[in-house]
């Protein structure tokens, strides 16, 4: 991984840099699996190696491919980096050793999650119980961040409807000639979408959950768009509806929280949602994961659409 990172420093071909960054993400996903963080690995693989690389490539289409290194002033930067590094290494000296079961991290708050989460929440995947219940409010914030990014990309890259109509006529489907690709994809896309739903609802038991599911779902739509062209894709997935869905996910999540208040609990206290606390937790987690999944899938799709419209607009003007 260090080698990949160093190669990124040296290369000036941005295409190669982006591809290497994708590889770096994939490697780090493997690393996360090795460290027992399966949920994180899943997310990193789908986000870092998938969506983020895709977006970078989409924007590379619009800019120069090679970096200009003529004005490169590494000295000051090296200085700052050295100081930071020295401070970090200094900080590591008193750290508990890697993998040490006696380290304080594992013994204050973490114990309760591991010992009691089954009884209190009834979900085997502890990461899901923390994410959705114990620290569910963080996840609401996270959904809100994604929504913010969606708003940002929309407001920055929005193409007016007229331009869309005009270019829709001109754009042929990019890969309309590739019959095999199209057939294979047609067969694959339903499976991708079903897999996304599986990940969405299986998050309680294995790695996965709303966020990963949302990304996979978006990937399915993106694949469809790449093969059949933006025009066709937007007839199937209307951008207006998707825009509303981005908002809908956040509303569902916060709405669940408000319902808890009206039912007499604290905000996001799922215990009050059903007669039995564990059932309540189940229902709450199901609903908010749905909210997360909706917002994520909708935002990712929107972001991809907006980037592609920009490319289309440039090519045909």
């Amino acid at each position, binding site marked *: 991984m260090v080698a990949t990172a160093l190669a990124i420093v040296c290369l000036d071909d941005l295409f190669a840099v982006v591809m290497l960054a994708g590889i770096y993400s994939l490697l780090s996903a493997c690393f996360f699996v090795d460290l027992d963080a399966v949920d994180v690995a899943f997310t990193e693989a789908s986000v870092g190696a998938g969506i983020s690389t895709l977006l970078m490539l989409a924007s590379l289409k619009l800019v120069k491919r090679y970096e200009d290194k003529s004005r490169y002033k590494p000295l000051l930067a090296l200085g700052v980096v050295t100081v930071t590094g020295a401070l970090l290494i200094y900080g590591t000296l008193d750290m508990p050793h890697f993998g040490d079961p006696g380290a304080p991290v594992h013994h204050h708050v973490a114990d309760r999650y591991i010992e009691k989460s089954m009884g209190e929440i009834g979900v085997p995947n502890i990461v899901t119980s923390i*994410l959705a219940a114990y620290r569910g409010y963080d996840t609401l914030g996270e959904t809100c961040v994604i929504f913010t990014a969606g708003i940002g990309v929309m407001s920055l890259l929005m193409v007016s409807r007229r331009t869309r109509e005009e270019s829709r006529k001109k754009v042929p489907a990019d890969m309309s000639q590739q019959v095999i690709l199209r057939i294979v994809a047609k067969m694959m896309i339903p499976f991708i979408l079903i897999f996304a739903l599986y990940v969405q609802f299986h998050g309680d038991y294995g790695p996965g959950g709303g966020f990963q599911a949302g990304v996979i779902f978006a990937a399915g739509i993106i694949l469809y768009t790449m093969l059949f062209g933006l025009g066709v894709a937007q007839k199937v997935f209307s951008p207006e509806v998707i825009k509303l869905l981005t908002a809908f996910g956040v509303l569902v999540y916060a709405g669940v929280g408000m319902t808890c208040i009206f039912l007499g609990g604290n905000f996001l206290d799922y215990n009050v949602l059903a007669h039995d606390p564990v059932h309540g937790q189940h229902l709450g987690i199901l609903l908010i994961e749905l909210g997360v999944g909706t917002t994520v899938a909708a935002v990712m799709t929107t972001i991809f659409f907006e980037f592609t419209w920009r490319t289309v607009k440039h090519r045909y003007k």
Partner: protein
Amino acid sequence: MNILGLYNYWIVVILILIGFYIVIAHENLIKKLVGLTIFQTAVFFFYISVGKIKGATAPILNDSLQVYSNPLPHCLILTAIVVGISTTALGLALVVRIQEAYGSIEEHELHAQDNNDQLESQLEAYGTRKQFNIMKRT
């Protein structure tokens, strides 16, 4: 033993530094964003390494297993990854708009163009002032 015990953290430090270096030393706006991703991912490693316990397994409860790694950092990093991709997406959108507005994404070229704009408004301002002084004298 001391060195081996901290080895993992030192790798993380090196990755953090490489990422940070790309962000501040490079002029190309896309490369800066790539650097930022590396920087953030390295910090994620740090969190996940903190949560690891030797001989433990992934924190999904199962009757036959006893020791689990700490799940809390995993949950925090899931959130942080999402924040990271949001930042990257927004950054890329800005890069696209900058490319359209300036025709370049190299920092020094942008500065040069900005300075030009600045100079023009400066000249205009001094023009006004000069006219005013002439008027006062006559």
